[in-house]
C-alpha cells in the first residue's frame, strides 16, 4: 500500500513536472531575427537568404525544435526579416532594434561586407570589457565575406568560406590539371571592397604561389597572411580595374587581349563580370581558362551572361552534391529561392544556432534575454566543428573565422557543374 502510494505520488509528481515542463516549453521559443538587402540592386541576396533561413528553421522545428537548458524542447522562431538595403545606417538601426526591442538571442544578417563592417563596429569589441559601451548582441552572418571582418568584434560571427584556403587549393589543383597553362592576368572591380581585396591579396597571390606567371608588371608576394596595408595593394593593383556600375570595358579588355594570357581571373560581381566577359568576347579574347570570384558562383551570373560565362571555374562553399545539400536545395527551391553559397550559409546558420543553443543551455524566457545572449555567444565561440551542407565546418576560435569545405564549379552548357570535389 505504502509502495503503491509512493509509486502513484512519484508518478503524479513526474507527470506534473513533465506537464509543467511541457506547458512551460510550449509558450517558449528561441527567437532569432534576420536581415539583409531586400530592396536595391542586391535584393536577390536578401530574398534567397531569408528563404533559406526560414526553410531551415521550419525543418528544425518539424524535427522537434531545440533542447533548452532545462531539457525541454522549444521551437526556433524567426521573429522577422528586415530589409537593410545594404545601407550602413539601416543595418545599425536594425541591429539596435533587434538588441533593444526584441527578445532575439541572435541577429542573423547583413548582405554587404561594407554594412557588416559598420555593424560590427557598433558591437562591443571584447567580451566583458566594461569600459566599452558597444552593443552586446551576438551576430551570426551568412555573407559579410570580406576577409578580416570577424576580428572587429568578439560578438560577430561569420559562416563564410575561407577564400585564402579555397583559392590556394584551386590553383594547386589547376596547376596539376592544366600543365599547359603558364601565364595569367585578370581584373577586378575596385569599388567593391570584397572583390578588390580578394582579387589582389588572395586570388592573384595564390595563382603566383602555384607557379602561374603574371603577365605584365610583376606582383610582389604578400605571404600567407592577408594584409590590407596600402603598399601591398598598390603594388598588387597592376591588374585591370573597373567599377561595379561601369558599362564600358573596352580599354581593360584590350589591355588583357594585348597581354594574351592563358588564364584570366575575373574577380567581380555578376553584373560587371558579365559586362567584362561580353566585352572580351567581342574583342575575340579567348583564354584557355577563366577563373571567377566566389560571389559570382550564383544564379545571377547565369541570368546575366550564360553564354559568355561558359567554362568559368569558381570555387564555392555550396553545390548540391550531398544528400542533405540536395534536399535543402529542393526545399528552398520550392519556397521560391535559390540556394547558392550565401543562402546555403544562411541555411547552415539555422543549424549552428540549434547547436549553440543546445550547447549553451539557454532559458529562452523573456526575462533571461541578456543572459541567454551572453551564453549563446560563448557557446557559439566555443563551437569548433559543425556540420555544413556539404561537409564538416571547422572554426578557428581565435579569429572567429570558419573554414568550410568547398568544391569547384564550372559553367557547362549554361549550368553550374561540379568539376572537382576536393573534400576529404
Amino acid at each position, binding site marked *: 500500500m505504502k509502495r503503491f502510494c509512493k509509486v502513484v505520488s512519484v508518478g503524479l509528481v513526474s507527470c506534473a513536472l513533465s506537464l509543467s515542463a511541457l506547458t512551460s516549453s510550449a509558450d517558449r521559443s528561441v527567437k532569432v531575427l534576420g536581415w539583409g538587402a531586400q530592396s536595391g540592386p542586391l535584393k536577390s541576396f536578401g530574398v534567397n537568404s531569408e528563404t533559406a533561413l526560414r526553410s531551415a528553421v521550419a525543418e528544425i522545428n518539424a524535427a522537434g525544435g531545440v533542447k533548452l537548458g532545462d531539457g525541454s524542447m522549444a521551437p526556433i522562431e524567426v521573429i522577422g526579416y528586415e530589409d537593410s538595403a545594404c545601407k550602413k*545606417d539601416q543595418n545599425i538601426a536594425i541591429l539596435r532594434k533587434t*538588441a*533593444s526591442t526584441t527578445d532575439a538571442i541572435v541577429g542573423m544578417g547583413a548582405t554587404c561586407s561594407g554594412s557588416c563592417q*559598420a555593424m560590427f563596429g557598433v558591437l562591443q569589441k571584447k567580451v566583458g570589457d566594461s569600459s566599452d559601451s558597444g552593443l552586446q548582441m551576438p551576430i551570426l552572418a551568412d555573407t559579410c565575406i570580406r576577409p578580416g571582418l570577424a576580428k*572587429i568584434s568578439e560578438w560577430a560571427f561569420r559562416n563564410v568560406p575561407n577564400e585564402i584556403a579555397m583559392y590556394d587549393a584551386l590553383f594547386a589543383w589547376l596547376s596539376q590539371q592544366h600543365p599547359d597553362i603558364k601565364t595569367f592576368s585578370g581584373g577586378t572591380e575596385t569599388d567593391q571592397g570584397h572583390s578588390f581585396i580578394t582579387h589582389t591579396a588572395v586570388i592573384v597571390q595564390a595563382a603566383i604561389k602555384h607557379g602561374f606567371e603574371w603577365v605584365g608588371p610583376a606582383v610582389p608576394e604578400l605571404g600567407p597572411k592577408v594584409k590590407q596595408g*596600402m603598399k601591398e595593394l598598390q603594388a598588387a593593383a597592376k591588374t585591370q580595374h573597373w567599377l561595379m556600375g561601369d558599362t564600358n570595358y573596352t580599354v581593360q579588355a584590350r589591355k588583357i587581349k594585348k597581354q594574351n594570357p592563358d588564364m584570366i581571373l575575373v574577380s567581380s560581381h555578376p553584373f560587371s563580370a558579365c559586362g567584362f566577359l561580353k566585352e572580351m568576347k567581342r574583342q575575340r579574347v579567348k583564354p584557355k581558362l577563366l577563373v571567377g570570384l566566389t560571389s559570382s558562383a550564383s544564379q545571377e551570373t547565369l541570368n546575366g551572361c550564360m553564354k559568355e560565362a561558359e567554362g568559368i571555374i569558381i570555387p564555392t562553399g555550396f553545390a548540391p552534391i550531398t544528400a542533405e545539400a540536395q534536399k535543402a536545395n529542393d526545399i528552398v527551391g520550392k519556397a521560391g529561392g535559390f540556394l547558392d553559397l550565401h543562402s546555403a550559409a544562411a541555411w547552415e546558420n539555422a543549424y549552428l544556432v540549434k547547436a549553440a543553443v543546445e550547447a549553451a543551455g539557454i532559458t529562452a524566457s523573456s526575462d533571461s534575454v541578456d543572459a541567454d545572449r551572453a551564453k549563446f555567444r560563448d557557446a557559439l565561440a566555443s563551437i569548433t566543428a559543425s556540420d555544413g551542407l556539404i561537409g564538416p565546418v571547422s572554426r578557428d576560435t581565435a579569429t572567429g573565422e570558419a573554414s568550410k569545405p568547398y568544391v569547384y564549379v564550372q559553367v557547362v552548357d549554361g549550368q553550374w557543374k561540379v568539376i572537382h570535389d576536393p573534400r576529404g
Partner: protein
Amino acid sequence: MDYYLNLINTIGIHTLLGLSAYLLILTGQVSMAQAGFFGVGAYTAAILTVIFQWSILSAIGAAMLVAGGLAFLVGFPALRVRGLMLVVATIAFSEFARMFFYNLRWQVVRDGTEIGPNGTMGFAEIRYFNNNGWLNWEVTIFLWTFVVVVMAIIWWSDRTRVGAVLRAVGEDELAADSTGINVTVVKVAAMTAGGVVAGLAGSLYAHQVTDLDHHTFTVLLATFAIAYPILGGLTNVFGTLVAVVFIQGLLVEGLRFLGDWRMLLFGALIIVAMNFKPMGLFDNQTIRILQNALGIKRRGGST
C-alpha cells in the same frame, strides 16, 4: 529604447545636413556639394579621433573648419554658375571629393591592427563613443546639443536683417545688387556657413556609424541634402526637421513593417507630398493651421 535613440541621432545628423543645404537654397543656390562637405567633415573628424587620438570636440571643431574653408574656396568659382549649371558643378565637386576618399589610403598600426582610411575597403572602427564608454543616450544629448544650437542660430538669423538679405538675394539677385547688397559676399558667406554645418553633420555621422567609405557620399546623399529643405519648405528651419522626420522617421524606419514594399512607397510618397504641398510640408498654411490649433497670435507676417 536604444533603437529610438539611434533613430533620433540619425534624424539629428540628417537635420544638420538638410540645414546646410537650407542656408544655400535661401540664397537661390541649389548645391549638391553638401555631400562632399559632409564627407570631408566625416573623414577629417574620424582621422583626428582615430589616428591622432584627439578628443571628439576638438576633432569636430577641426572638421567644421576644414569643411568650411573648402566651401569658402568652392564658393568663389561656383559664383559664376547659376541654376542647373550650379547643380552640376557642385555634383562635380561632390564626386571629386568622393573619388578622393575612394583613393585615400592612410593606415597606421595601433596595437597590432592597421587602422585608418583604407581606400575602397573603407575606414573601419571609428569607435570613439564606444571606446570611451559613452552610452547611447549620452551620444544623443551630445549630438542634439549641436543640432539645437545650429537650428537656433539659423532660426534667429532668419528673423534678422541678415536673413532678409539672404532671402532677398534668393528672390532677385539684380534687384538685391541694386539695393546695395553685395551679392558676392552674401553667396560665398552662405556657401561657407553651409560647408561648416555639413562638416559638423559629417563629423557626427562618422562616429555614429563607426565606419566610412565612399559609398556613403554619393549623389544620392547630396540629393537627400537638398530634398529635406525643399520637402519641408523654406518658411523656416523647422520645415527641414519635419522633412527629415518624414523621410528618416516615417519612410525609412517607420514603414519597416511593409517589408520590401517600403522602398516602393518611398518614392511614391515623395511625389504625393510635392503634389499636395509644393511649397513644402511645413509651409505657411501648415503653420497657420498649427497656430490656430495652438491659439498662437502671430506677429508681423512671415518675418
